[in-house]
Structure formats: structure tokens, C-alpha cells
């Protein structure tokens, strides 16, 4: 089945130690998104790629970076995780222009910072 896969499902990292979360998709969608979701809150968009075009949200901290080496893969890099970065990180994809199909979400990576 076509899907969005996030690895790992759970990630524990040390305070200040760089960490990378990964997302892959078999849907051939050209738009990929990274969201941060804290407990009982709505997902908050960090950035998205429209093909290779990177679009950063104005309030996304510089500590968060992203790479998209090809259509299928997208990575979220947190350069120096702080305790406040502990959250669920969701990857999502959509077709060009959005549309009635909406987004397809991955299962998320729950990041713990110790």
C-alpha cells in the first residue's frame, strides 16, 4: 500500500545532541510537510517542501533544519535539541495544489530529550 513512513517511531536523544528524523513516501506526492505536535495540541507546521522548494514558517526556530534529497525522502534535523523540543513530529504529504484528498500523515516520531 502507498504510504508515508516515519522512522524511528520513538527517539530518545540527549540535550544538545543533534538528531535526525526521517520520512519516506511511496505516494509520489510532490509536497512534503513537517509538523511538531505537543501533547493535546494541534499540529504546528515547521516547514514544507514543494518539490525542491523549501518553505520555512516564520516562527520555526533556527535549530530546526530539513533536507529533501529526492521526491521520496525528507529529513528533519534538530541541531541542538532542548527540553522544549520534546514532542511528536509528524510528516505529511500531499499532491500539487492540495486538493480534496487532503494530506496523508505518517505515524509520527515521538522525540524525548533527556
Amino acid at each position, binding site marked *: 500500500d502507498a504510504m508515508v513512513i516515519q522512522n524511528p517511531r520513538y527517539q530518545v536523544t540527549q540535550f544538545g545532541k543533534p538528531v535526525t528524523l526521517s520520512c519516506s513516501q511511496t505516494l509520489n506526492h510532490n*509536497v512534503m*510537510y513537517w509538523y511538531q505536535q505537543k501533547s*493535546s*495540541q*494541534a*499540529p504546528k*507546521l515547521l516547514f*514544507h517542501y*514543494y518539490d525542491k522548494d523549501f*518553505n520555512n514558517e516564520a516562527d520555526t526556530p533556527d535549530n530546526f533544519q530539513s533536507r529533501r534529497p529526492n521526491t521520496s525522502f525528507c529529513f528533519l534535523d534538530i541541531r541542538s535539541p532542548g527540553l522544549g523540543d520534546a514532542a511528536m513530529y*509528524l510528516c*505529511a504529504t500531499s499532491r*500539487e*495544489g*492540495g*486538493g*480534496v*484528498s*487532503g*494530506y*496523508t*500523515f*505518517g*505515524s*509520527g516520531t*515521538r522525540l524525548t530529550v533527556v
Partner: protein
Amino acid sequence: AQTVTQSQPEMSVQEAETVTLSCTYDTSENNYYLFWYKQPPSRQMILVIRQEAYKQQNATENRFSVNFQKAAKSFSLKISDSQLGDTAMYFCAFMKRGRGQNFVFGPGTRLSVLP
């Protein structure tokens, strides 16, 4: 800018009963989509139902239906014959049509289905 409001932070319903979750939104756009997503505890966000704004007919997916009132900017979700597996956070979301348009999520409603 668009905003989405869900006025019920938490709701509960008895199994087999019907429940309605509220969603209102604010936009000056005429062409857009509305969605309800379900997120069970520690699980994936799943699309429940969607509505295209230009369609007057309310969307229905099995036990899930919406009441879309475009003039009132209201998009409520009705769950009939509630099941224990319906326990989840429910997010209402707005998407403007066009390139690079992103979801605007509501704050969510936590629904508990009680046995």
C-alpha cells in the same frame, strides 16, 4: 488569514449513541476544502471525511457525516452509532485551493466513547 475554531475541548458519548462535534472557521476565500481528521491515542492521524466548499451536498462516509453551512462558516461532524474505536482527538482543518496551501488546524476535540 484563516482560523479554525473547535469550541468543545472534550466530549463524551455512550456507545451506540450519536454525537456532533462543532467546527467554525473564518475565511474570505470562496474555493477551499474542509476536513475532519481523527487521531487515536499515540496513533496516526487519519482522514475521516472531507468537503469541497463548492459542493452544497453534505459529505457522508458510513457512520460519519457533516453539516456544512457555508454562509455560516460552520462544518460540524456527526458520528452515528458511536463505537469504542471512535475514541480519539478530532481535528477540523481548512485548506485553501491552490499551490502551496497548507492546512489550518483547529485546536481539536477529545472524544471519549463510553461503554
